[in-house]
């Protein structure tokens, strides 16, 4: 049997720039126990279990409409799987 998905880390590396500040703040607000690491040009966000990005949280901080497709402008890489990518939410988790 594999280790339960809730205890295994998933994560995403984003470009660290002004454009993505609201996005990072939204992810921080919506995900408890987030681990953050800064590297030149990169901010790396990891968390055990599930990492959630909510459209409403991003829009609230950005002050303008933000469609989830726009997440593609920010992402450098990820680990885990996109188990959900919808109009209102993106979820990264392991399946098994």
């Amino acid at each position, binding site marked *: 049997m*594999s*280790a339960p*998905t809730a205890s*295994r*880390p*998933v*994560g995403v*590396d984003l*470009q660290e720039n002004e454009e993505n500040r609201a996005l990072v703040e939204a992810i921080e607000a919506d995900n408890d126990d987030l681990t953050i690491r800064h*590297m*030149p*040009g*990169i901010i790396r966000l990891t968390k055990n279990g599930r990492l959630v990005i909510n459209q409403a949280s991003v829009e609230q901080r950005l002050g303008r409409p933000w469609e*989830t*497709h*726009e997440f*593609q*402008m*920010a*992402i*450098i*890489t*990820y*680990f*885990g*799987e*996109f*188990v*959900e*990518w*919808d*109009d209102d939410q993106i979820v990264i988790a*392991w*399946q*098994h």
Partner: protein
Amino acid sequence: MTVSPEKPARKLSMKQRYSALTHDLDWAPTYVQEEEIFPFTTFEGIKVHDWSKWEDPFRLTVEAYNKYQAEKDRRLYAVLDGFAQSQGQVGLTDARYMNAMKIFLQGIPVHEYNAHRNFSYLARYANGPGARFAALCQSMDELRHAQTEIHTLSHYNKYFDGMHHWHHWTDRVWYLSVPKSFFEDAMTAGPFEWLIAIGFSFEYLLTNLLFVPFMSGASFNGDLPTMTFGFSAQSDESRHMTLGLEAIKFMCEQDEDNVPIVQDWLDKWFWRGYRLIALVAGMMDYMHPKRVMSWKEAFELYFEEQMLNGLFKDLEYYGIKPPRHVQWAIDEKEILSHQVYWVLYQFSHAAAFSTTIPNAEDQAWLEANYPETWPVFKEVAWDKAQRVMDAGGRYFNPGLPQLCTVCQIPMGFTEPGNPLVQCQRQSVYEGERYDFCSDGCQWIFDREPTKYRQAWLPVHQIFQGNCGGPGGLPAVAEWYKLGPNDGAEYLGSNDQKNWLAWHGQTPKEA
């Protein structure tokens, strides 16, 4: 004409838009057999019962693809313009940093283009609409990557040696046969093996090790254009990783009989890809004047933690195990970059990049990051190279190295657990002997000897007179179109002289 009082239809949801583009535009053929339209998806033995199960989690549509790709290009080209206009090359950490980018330019853009070609083949010949559309997007991405890499680095070509014949070198120069043979190996496989080779093993498992620390390193060394194209490419790469992951899961879910075939491909392509990015290990630890992280740390972070402790636990569900030779790679993480850079150092007189002995600052960093292995390599290699320099010479290996038949890297790797004993494996096939750098490469050959016996090995070709004739190194260099200032030692090179002149220094002050 009466206008209907109905309200306009509500905008479709993302799911509906994606479904309308893919599944709704697909149809079952009636006047020809499916195999006539898609003739290449059965011979590899992969069984697919329901192609409609292939879903792209990104749910990308043509409109969204075009909108965001255009925006990515606008941002990138604004940066390139600003960098050129402000003479950004003067603000790099050091001219020797460019050597890493020379290898990148010589070794990668042509194969981005090859990936573009093979994904457009998949966009036509995959049976399912989900797979076809994801492959079409990736095909366009790969073309964009080839173009943006060439555009980005063309600025540096005005100021540095070692870039002018990158395209010609890709096809001819010895160390560039490493990436060339890798991609051509994948392109000559079937479509499913290609997906495991490039989509899964390269893009999902290993590409982070190529792009992320390397591009973060570009940021750290003042190379804004490379950082920008790298991150711009990586944002597409996330989709490619998703395609690769979808591919392996789809194959495993469609039929249990697919699992052992997929496992074999995974074992093969992990090792092929890992050997290819060994070049990156040397670049990261030795060619970047300022370093974000060591190869060893990047390997632990992006491979051991994410893939072995994350992904492969997930794939266990399907009966997929970690790659066959993964322990060998883990054991090598302390020595890989030392061995690769030592090979590059010895043979850079026949290359389009220059090398130099790590300076005092570099050595302190190497000592701190590789406390157990650096002192050994320093003593057996660099102290000797330094003595040659001190006596007014420069150590170059006057011979031609034996190459591994599979990865095509000179035989400079060592036995597990003993960094001072060269590893050499041999297989005999139809009376001919073939040599390998590792168990991994030998295993790959033994599985498909009829494929790898055809390998175009640069050293064999030189000895056979196929690389400029029998005139030795000068004839080979001419056939390569290497200029007198493209390779050899960095100290005293044109690049270094120019760099010092731009900063108002003379070699003595440096």
